[in-house]
Every structure is written in C-alpha cells, then in structure tokens.
C-alpha cells in the first residue's frame, strides 16, 4: 500500500501491490522507489501516467561512467556524483519500507528520530549497507522536523541545539571506524548514526579539525558536502536533544566559529591545490544554489571568489542562525549537491585541457586590463597599418569574384558607352600605354600578368581569363527568372545585366503597330510612328557602327560583310527613301528631318550609303524642302542642328559629283520652290551657295582632280541657264535676303549671306549680273564697310568685294563713299 507525504493514496488505477521491479531499477540509486515500495514508479506492464515517466526521466541521470570518470572516481575513493538521494532517508524516513509506513502519517512526530534506543540491527545494517554500497550518503534525516515550523520565539533555539556534545557525537564515529579500505565510509559513519540517536564520544575541536583535514586531503573531498553534512548533523543533534539549547548564543557562536575555523584550516591546506578548487568550493558553499560556470576563470575567479566568499558568508550564518526555516537552510546543500557534480566535472575536464584555451583567455584578460594610459596612437600611413591582412590568394579570390560579375564577352553590348567613349577619346588623343593602364580597376591590376607588357595586352588577357570564368558560369545557367513548379508567376533574378525594374511597363503599341503596317502611307504621318521609324534607323545605324568597329573576325570576313549588307538594306528600307512617294503625299524622310534626332542621324546614315543612295536621299531632301521645318521659320536651334548636321553631309556629297548632277539638283530646287522664299531661309541659301560654288569649281576644271571628266559644253550651257534663271528670280530681292537685324545680330549671322552673295558674284556670267548685285546691296555693303571695328564684318564685305573682282576692299570703299 503506497502512500505519499501528503497522506493520500498514490496508487494508480490498475496498480496493486508494489511490483517487483526490474533489477536495474532496483539498484538504481537515483530513484526513491525502493523506499516507498515503488509507488512512484511504473510497474511492468502498466501504462502509467505520463507524469510518472517525466518524473522518472527528470530524476534519472547517468552515473559517472557516462562522463568517463568511473576510474577516477574509484581512485579518488569518493564518488563525484552526488544526487539528491542523500537525504532520502530524511525525506522519506530511513525505514520507509512499505510495511513500516502507515497511513496515519504524522508530520510532527517521526519515531525514528526521537528514539533514544539503538535501532534494531537490521535497520542499521540496511542503512549502512545503503551508505556503503554507494557513495557516502548522509542518511541522517531531518525527516519531518523540517516542517515543524518553530514558533518565532523559538527561532533562536535551533542553533543552540548544536551543542558541543552534539558535535562531538558527530565526529566521534570515525575514530571507531574499522576499515581503512573503505575510506569513504568513516565519514558517513558519524552521519549515519547520530541520526539514529547513537551517542558518540565527544570530540574536541582539534580532533574535529584533524578529522576534517584528513578528509580534505583526499582529492575530491568537497567542502560543502562536509559543511552540509555538518549542518545537517548539527540540526539532527539539536533535534535530538531539544534540551540542549540552554547555552544559546555560545552554541551559535561555536557553530559559526567552527565552520569558519574549519574553512580557514581547509583553505590553508588547500593552498597547494589549484586555487580554482577552493574558491569554487567556497563559493558554491556560500551561494544559495547559484550555479557556477563549469570552466573556472583563473585569477579573476580567485579574486572574485575570495571577495565573494567573504560577503555571502554571513548569509548562511544567518540562515543557520535563523534556523526557522531549516528547510531553506537545507535547500542550499541539496541544490549544491545537485549542481556540484556538473561543476566538478567541468573543473576536472577543464584541467585536462590546460594549454590553449587557458592561455588565450589569459591573454585576453591581460588585454582587457589595459588602461586608458596604455593607448598607443598608430600614426603610420594607412597603407602600412593595414598591409598584410589578406594574403595574395585571398585578394585574388575576391577580385575574381567581383570581376566575374562584370566582365563580359561582348563589351559592345554590355559596356557600350565605356568602350566607344574610350575608343573615341583614344582616337583623339593617341594615348600612351601608361594612360591606358590607368583605366584599369584594382581587380584588373591585381590579376594582371606581370610578365606581359603593353597596355592593350593586359585587358585582353584579363578578358581571356574572364572568358574562362564566364564559360564556367555558363555551364550552370541560372537564367534571369526563376519559376517554381506549382507556383504562380516567375521570380526574376536581378543581376548587373538585368537590374530590377522599378516600373513594369508593357508596350501597348506593339500590338497596334501590326495593324498599321498595311495602312496607306498617309497614315504614317503621326509623330509617334515617325519617331519609331527614326529609332529603327538608329538601331540599324548603331548595329552597323558596332560591326564596323569590331571588324571582321579572322576567318569570317564574308559573314561580316553579309551582316553589314543586311543591316544596310534594312536601314535603307527604314529610311523610306526606297520607294517613290507621290509629291502630294508627305514623304517620311522629310518628316524625319522635322525632328532633331532625325537630323542628327543623317550624317551617320550617309556613311553607310553608297553614292546612288546618297544622291537619292539628297534629291528627296531637296524636293521636299518646303515641308522641312527649318525652311519655314523654325527655331534657330533646329536650324543650327540642321546646318551642323545635314548641310555638311550634303556638301560633302555634292563636292564629289559632276556638273550634270549639280544641274539636276538645282533644277529640282528651281522647279519645286520659290526662290525668294528659299533664299530667305538659311538652309536654302546654304544649299544654293553650295551648288554655286560647286558649279564654279567644276567650270574651272576642279572636277578633273577628282577623276571626273571635264564639264561638257552641254553641262556648262545648262548651268548658265540655270544661273540666269536663278538670278532672275532673285532680282530685286537681294537686299531682303539679309536676316532681320535683331538686337543681338552679329556679323557671324550674316556670314552665310555674304557667302552667297560672293558665290553669286563669282558665278556671274555677265557684267550685268554683277552690277545688279552691287547696286542692290550697295547700302548694305557700305553700312557694313563702315563698321571698321568689327573685323568679321569687314571680312565679309571683303569677301564679296573680292568676289566681285572690283579690286577694292572695304577700307577703300568706305573712304570712297565718304
């Protein structure tokens, strides 16, 4: 029949008598099942409650063999492990055999403790056997006295129970101990018996000390065990002799002193022993259940331990003095006993690993102790300070990783701006090797092959190296997006090449464009479509330029050529000049030129057009001048862009053509446009000037140098007709071609006019022409000639005058007219 502390039946349903346990359990000292008849253990075949299992696990921990300390333990003669079972007898009664425990549990009066007589031999043997078979176990029991709360007035009584006689009884036993082999047993003996009320021969204090020292000399005698046991004994004794509290304070003092003296003696003895032990033990003894870290900290601990051992010492004294809550006082040793094995194990293990960790710690400890004054300022240059932190391999590794992300196999695609820009500026500046090396980043410099010389080689070798890296990476293609099975949508992996899009814009026009293509040409007038066409031309041009820059690969010249040809045709088609457009329809190419970027693409396009195509373009342009914005009072910026982009291109083309081409072009102009109107626009004048000068050149035989046959009579006659027609249409209007003189008009603005006039003068076929010219612009000439402070103006006038062939210059003219 099982009972518990609290007086109720703890047998679980289905349980009957205490069962026979498996042998292992029976011998397991970690359980207290035996004493209670197994009430707290699961029997065989019983499902049991989870709680019991948990409790079992909680209180069942391995023995020292698990930690590998079995041997040392035996050698030391004392077990390292101390479990809570020391007090089992007290807790549950030394004779807590099932048969002896009654249901009428009396908390206050446990017979065993109070018995004066020597207990029966079987009990003694049993107790002793328990103690001796295992490790020393304090089988003295507080039993139920601990819950016998003393009245406040009696609190001082407890310590007084620890009279000298009690102590003597405690320490008496070892002297009568017999076996030397069971060295560990003498210590427990005095503890066993006093619990049973066996009076011992009083020992003097010196004997106590000697006994203690003897015990302490054994390697692993632990102070707090001693102390705990002492305290327990003292209390037990006190309880047993309640009358022994007469000498109250003296008993208290003596108890305190004894402890203190004992500790001091022990410490003296423990000097040679590593100090960690002592402070650890002291500290453990002093603190209430505070668990220390397993690895002792050397010197720090020593100091701290000593300091700390001072302060808490009053505490346990208070506890003892208090005495009221003996349970509490008892608690500490119990907990310590529980914790101690781990701590000691830690100590022991740590002692084995003396070398590295301890030194490292000591070093750090010393460093931490550096004070404010020990600072040293490191004034070396920064490079020196941080030199040598990484070795060469590490640096190269990092450089490789970084560079592999950046280096590409097609720099014209990925690194376009940089590549083209450097080639352009290099073309301008003719950079030396040093400068080209300066453009390398540190990674390239690091990975450079030192033996190779020359700037160009370096980057090439870099690229070669990186090619391998790139190919290696291509082996396992990650791709730009990741789509998992079963998941909706894709995750796009951003890298340098495809950065994460902040906005996700889809093109709605892409679907519409397909419908518009078959539409009539007039539908293409919308500016959006024109712009799209321009962009198409741009991409073609860019492609051509890249191809040209790359140059053909070694064996693929034909392929390269074909690629170029393809691109050219595409571009020509995109220009829209290929198919003739009726004159009443707006021409797409002309629309190009209404946009700035359309104007800017013209010179680049021309580089890839052959002569016929170029001429076709020009003739288209000339015939459609009226629809071009610059000829119709456009902003000066657009005019400038036109003048700087388109006109020079055309000029360069025209300067190569024979006279009949010139004739044809001018005829187009004359037929299509009103000359007066045309002459009022800058581009128009520019074109006229161009044609005039070219014609003159050809007339004077300039074309011969270019491989052209000299102008035939027909062409010359044609040209003369054209000139006359032109002159006639401009007659009386020459003065109006000058741009309106605004407040900021400078001589530079009029240059083109003077050039035109000069060209006209040069091309004059008859003297009448010249006379008319001069007459009409006379005022202007004079006025400009008088501006003697403006050199440019003078130059302009001189140009005209020279062209006239009058033989006078501006200065003379000015003087003349005055």
């Amino acid at each position: 029949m099982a009972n518990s502390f609290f007086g109720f039946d703890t047998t679980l349903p289905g349980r009957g008598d205490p069962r026979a346990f498996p042998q292992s359990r029976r011998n397991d000292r970690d359980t207290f099942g035996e004493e209670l008849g197994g009430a707290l253990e699961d029997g065989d075949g019983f499902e049991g409650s989870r709680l019991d299992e948990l409790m079992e696990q909680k209180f069942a921990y391995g023995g020292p063999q698990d930690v590998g300390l079995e041997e040392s333990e035996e050698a030391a003669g004392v077990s390292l492990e101390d479990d809570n079972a020391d007090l089992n007898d007290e807790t549950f009664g030394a004779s807590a055999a099932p048969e002896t425990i009654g249901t009428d549990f009396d908390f206050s009066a446990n017979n065993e403790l109070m018995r004066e007589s020597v207990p029966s031999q079987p009990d003694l043997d049993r107790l002793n056997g328990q103690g001796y078979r295992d490790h020393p176990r304090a089988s003295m029991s507080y039993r139920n006295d601990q819950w016998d709360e003393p009245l406040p007035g009696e609190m001082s009584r407890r310590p007084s129970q620890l009279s000298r006689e009690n102590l003597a009884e405690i320490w008496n036993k070892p002297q009568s101990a017999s076996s030397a082999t069971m060295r560990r047993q003498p210590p427990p003996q005095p503890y066993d018996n006093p619990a049973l009320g066996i009076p011992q021969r009083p020992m003097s204090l010196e004997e106590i000390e000697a006994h203690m020292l003897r015990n302490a000399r054994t390697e692993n005698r632990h102070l707090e065990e001693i102390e705990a046991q002492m305290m327990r004994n003292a209390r037990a004794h006190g309880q047993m002799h309640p009358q022994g509290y007469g000498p109250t304070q003296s008993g208290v003092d003596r108890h305190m002193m004894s402890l203190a003296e004992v500790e001091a003696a022990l410490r003296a003895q423990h000097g040679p022993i590593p100090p960690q032990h002592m402070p650890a033990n002291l500290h453990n003894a002093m603190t209430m259940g505070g668990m220390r870290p397993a690895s002792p900290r050397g010197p720090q601990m020593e100091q701290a331990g000593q300091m700390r051992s001072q302060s808490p010492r009053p505490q346990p004294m208070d506890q003892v003095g208090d005495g009221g809550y003996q349970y509490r006082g008892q608690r500490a040793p119990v907990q310590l006993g529980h914790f101690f094995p781990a701590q000691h194990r830690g100590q022991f293990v740590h002692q084995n690993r003396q070398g590295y960790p301890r030194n490292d710690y000591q070093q750090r400890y010393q460093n931490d102790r550096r004070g404010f004054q020990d600072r040293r300022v490191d004034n070396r240059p920064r490079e020196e300070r941080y030199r040598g932190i990484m070795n060469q391999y590490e640096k190269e590794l990092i450089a490789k990783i970084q560079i592999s992300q950046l280096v590409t196999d097609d720099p014209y695609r990925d690194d376009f701006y940089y590549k083209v820009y450097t080639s352009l500026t290099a073309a301008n500046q003719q950079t030396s090797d040093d400068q080209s090396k300066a453009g390398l980043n540190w990674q390239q410099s690091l990975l450079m092959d030192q033996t190779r010389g020359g700037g160009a080689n370096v980057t090439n070798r870099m690229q070669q190296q990186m090619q391998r890296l790139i190919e290696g990476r291509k082996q396992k293609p990650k791709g730009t997006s990741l789509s998992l099975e079963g998941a909706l949508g894709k995750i796009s992996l951003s890298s340098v090449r495809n950065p994460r899009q902040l906005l996700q814009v889809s093109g709605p026009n892409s679907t519409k464009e397909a419908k518009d293509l078959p539409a009539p040409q007039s539908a293409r007038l919308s500016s959006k479509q024109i712009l799209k066409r321009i962009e198409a031309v741009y991409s073609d041009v860019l492609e051509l330029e890249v191809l040209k820059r790359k140059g053909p690969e070694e064996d693929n010249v034909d392929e390269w050529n074909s690629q170029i040809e393809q691109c050219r045709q595409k571009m020509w088609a995109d220009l829209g000049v290929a198919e003739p457009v009726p004159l009443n329809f707006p021409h797409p190419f002309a629309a190009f030129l209404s946009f700035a970027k359309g104007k800017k693409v013209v010179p680049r396009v021309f580089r890839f057009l052959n002569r016929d195509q170029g001429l076709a373009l020009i003739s288209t342009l000339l015939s459609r001048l009226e629809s071009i914005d610059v000829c119709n009072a456009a902003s000066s910026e657009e005019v400038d862009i036109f003048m700087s982009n388109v006109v020079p291109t055309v000029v360069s083309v025209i300067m190569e053509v024979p006279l009949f081409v010139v004739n044809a072009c001018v005829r187009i102009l004359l037929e299509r446009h009103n000359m007066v109107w045309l002459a009022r626009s800058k581009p128009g004048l520019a074109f006229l000037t161009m044609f005039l000068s070219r014609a003159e050149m050809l007339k004077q035989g300039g074309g011969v140098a270019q491989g052209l046959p000299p102008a035939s009579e027909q062409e010359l006659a044609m040209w003369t007709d054209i000139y006359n027609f032109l002159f006639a249409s401009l007659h009386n209007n020459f003065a109006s071609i000058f741009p309106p003189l605004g407040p900021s008009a400078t001589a530079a603005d009029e240059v083109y006019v003077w050039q035109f006039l000069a060209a006209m003068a040069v091309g004059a076929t008859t003297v009448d022409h010249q006379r008319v010219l001069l007459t009409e612009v006379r005022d202007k000439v004079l006025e400009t000639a008088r501006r003697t402070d403006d050199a440019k103006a003078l130059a302009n006038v001189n140009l005209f005058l020279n062209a006239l062939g009058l033989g006078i210059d501006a200065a003379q003219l000015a003087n003349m007219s005055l």
Partner: protein
Amino acid sequence: MLFYSFFKTLVGKQVTVELKNDLEIRGTLVSVDQFLNIKLDDVHVVDEQKYPHMMSVKNCFVRGSVVRYVSLPAQHVDTALLQDAARREAQAGR
C-alpha cells in the same frame, strides 16, 4: 550596365555627389562598381558650415543606394553616345 559603364568613363574627373540626406560632396571619382557605389578622393563638402564633422574627411566610400544626384563635368560627357548607349540598352532589354 549602362550607368556603370558611364561612370567608368568619368573616373578621375571631378564630380559632386548629392546624397539623399542632402549632403553634397565634391571630389575626384576614384572608382565605381556595379552597384554604383562611389569612391571619392580629395573630398570637400559643398556647404562647409553645415557639416563641420566632414572637415577631416579626405576620401570616402559612398554606398550607391544613398546617392540622389551626381553632378558631372559636361565636357566629359558625350550625350549623343549616351543616347546611343541608352538605345542599345533599351533594345537589349526588349
């Protein structure tokens, strides 16, 4: 890679970096990386009075994500080429 490529051509030139915390730093561009982190040398803060703590700073590394603007010398930028590069980039993306 466009901006990385673009900034690579400006290495060694004087630029002024304006950060998102309104700090403006003028210095010589030493290097740039794929994240457009910027290293500047010979650093001067534009508004010295307001940021006295920057007086001792001679060179700095600026994380790319905190940059708001970078002011560049116009003569070292080829805008037409930049347009072309942007065109190519757009095409590559398409």
